C-alpha cells in the first residue's frame, strides 16, 4: 500500500517557540488515520504545518512521495491536500451555496463543481434546504456540515479534519461521526484529529497518540486498547 501522506522528522513552531519535535507519521491512501492527544500536544500545529500555515523548520512533508515542504498553502490545496479547520471557519456573511462554491475555487475543481455540489447536497440534505441562507445563521452542527461539504468540494486527495465534534451537542456529534464513517467507507483518505478518543477510535484504521509535540504511540486501529491508551494519555500528562 502506498502512503498518501508522509511526515518525516518534522519540526515546526511559531517563531522562537518550537512545537513539533521530530514528528514522523504516515497516512495510508484510502484509510482513516486518527491522531489523539491532550490539549497542547501539537495536533493542530501538525495539521497547520502540513498545510503550510506554520513553517516547517526541519524534516519533510511528502504527498504521494513528493516533497511539498516548500509549497505555498494555496498550491498545496490545488494539489489536493485539504483541511477542514478547527472552529469550522466558514464564511459567515456568504450564503451556504457561495461557501460551497468557494470550496471549488482551486482551478482543477471548477469544472466539476456542479456535480460535486449535487453530491454534497445529497450527503447533507439540511444544507440543500438552507442553500440560500447566510452561513453565519447556521447552527453549530449545520456549520460543521457546511465546513465538511466545502472541503469535499475541493476534491481532496488527503483530507485533514481538525476537531469536527468540538462544541457540538451529543446528538449532533453522532451525526458528524456517521458522516465521517461514511466518508471512510467511500475510500476517502482522512487524517482526523479528535479529542473524543473513544468515538474516533471506532473509525480509525491507524491511531497515533501525540504528547508534548512528539508521537508516543503508533498502533493499528483494531489493536488499540482504550484503557492502555488512556493510561498513556494521562501518564504523560502528569509526568509533564
Amino acid at each position, binding site marked *: 500500500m502506498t502512503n498518501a501522506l508522509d511526515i518525516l522528522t518534522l519540526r515546526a513552531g511559531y517563531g522562537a517557540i518550537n512545537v513539533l519535535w521530530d514528528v514522523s507519521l504516515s497516512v495510508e491512501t484510502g484509510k482513516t488515520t486518527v491522531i489523539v492527544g491532550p490539549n497542547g500536544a501539537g495536533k493542530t500545529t501538525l495539521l497547520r504545518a502540513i*498545510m503550510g*500555515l506554520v513553517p516547517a523548520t526541519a524534516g519533510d512533508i511528502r504527498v504521494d512521495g513528493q516533497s511539498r515542504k516548500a509549497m*505555498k*498553502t*494555496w498550491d498545496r*490545496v*490545488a494539489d489536493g491536500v*485539504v*483541511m477542514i*479547520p478547527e472552529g469550522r*471557519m*466558514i*464564511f*459567515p*456573511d*456568504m450564503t451556504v451555496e*457561495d461557501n460551497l*462554491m*468557494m*470550496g471549488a*475555487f*482551486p482551478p482543477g*475543481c*471548477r469544472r466539476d463543481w456542479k456535480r460535486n455540489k449535487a453530491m454534497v447536497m445529497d450527503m447533507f440534505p439540511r444544507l440543500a434546504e438552507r442553500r440560500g441562507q447566510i452561513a453565519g445563521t447556521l447552527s453549530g452542527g449545520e456549520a460543521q456540515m457546511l465546513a465538511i461539504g*466545502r472541503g469535499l468540494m*475541493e476534491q481532496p486527495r488527503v483530507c485533514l479534519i481538525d476537531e469536527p465534534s468540538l462544541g457540538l451537542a451529543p446528538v449532533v456529534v453522532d451525526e458528524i461521526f456517521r458522516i465521517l464513517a461514511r466518508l471512510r467507507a467511500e475510500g476517502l483518505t482522512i487524517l482526523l484529529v479528535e479529542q473524543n478518543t473513544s468515538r474516533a477510535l471506532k473509525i480509525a484504521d491507524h491511531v497515533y497518540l501525540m504528547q508534548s509535540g512528539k508521537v508516543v504511540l503508533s498502533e493499528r486501529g483494531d489493536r488499540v486498547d482504550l484503557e492502555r491508551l488512556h493510561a498513556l494519555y494521562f501518564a504523560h500528562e502528569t509526568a509533564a
Partner: protein
Amino acid sequence: MLELTLQALFSGLLAGGYYATVAVGLALVFGTMRVINLAHGELVLLAAYVAYAAETNYGVNPVMAIPVALVIVGTASAIVYALLSRINQDREINSLILTFGLGIILTNAILSIWAADIHSTSDPWFQDSMVIADTLFAMNAEVAAFIGGLVLMAGVWWWLNHSWQGRAVRALSSNRAAATLMGVNPRKIEILSFLIAALLATFAGFAIYTGKTVFPALGHVLTVKAFIITVLAGMGSIPGVLIGAIMIGVIESLTVTYLSASLQELAGMILFLVVLFVSPSGLFGGGRALAR
C-alpha cells in the same frame, strides 16, 4: 419652492453617484486588505489630470484618453499595493502613514506639473445642460457620469457575486485564513482589488473633470469623503455605499440651496456624526460583507 427642492434633490442624487464610484474603490481595497488607502482620492485626481492633459496638450476628447488613464492610474495603484504589501509590522498604522505620504507625493507631483490652477473641460457638449421632465436641469456630463457610474458599480457588484475571483474577494474579506485554505492566493486577489479600485477611480476622475472642476488639493477631499461614505454605509455592501453616497450628496446639495455653499462640507460631516452616534456600525451595520 418645490421646484427648487426637487432640483436640489436631483443634483444631490447625481453628485452621490460619483461620490459612490470613488467610495466603492476604497471599500473594495479595505475589504480585501483591511487597509484604508489614503491615496485613493489622489488616484482619482491623477485620472482627472490625464483627461486635462489629453484635452489641452494633445487636443484629444477626454473620453478617448480613458484607456491611457487606465494604464497610468492602474500602474500607480499597483505601485501603492507593491509598497503596502511590504509592510510586515503594525499594518494598520503603518499603512495609513504610507498611503498618506504617497497621497502627498502624488498631489505635489501634479502641482509641480500642472500648477495650482482650477481646470475643467473645454468641450461644450459636456457642459451643455439637458432638461428632464420640464423642470430638472443637469449637465450632460453629470448625467453621463451618473449612468456610467451605476453601470460600472453594477458590473463590480455582479462580478463580486457571480465570478470565481469576485467570490474570492468576498471570502478573503470574510476570513483570510479560511480563504487561503480554499486555494486562494491572497496577493493575487489583493492586487486585483487594487486594479478594480483604479478602474473606478479613473472613471470618477473623468466624471469630475468633465462635470465639475479639478485642482491639486482635491485629492484628499475625495479620500475623506469616500472614507466617510464607507463608514456611514457600514464598511461593505455596494448598494449600501451607493445609498450612503446619495445621502451625502443630497444633504450637501440641500445645504448649498437653502443655507450657504460654505456650509456644504459641514452638513455632510454632521450627518456622518449623527449616523455614527445613533448606529455606531453604520447604516447597514455590522456587515463586513461586500456585495450584499
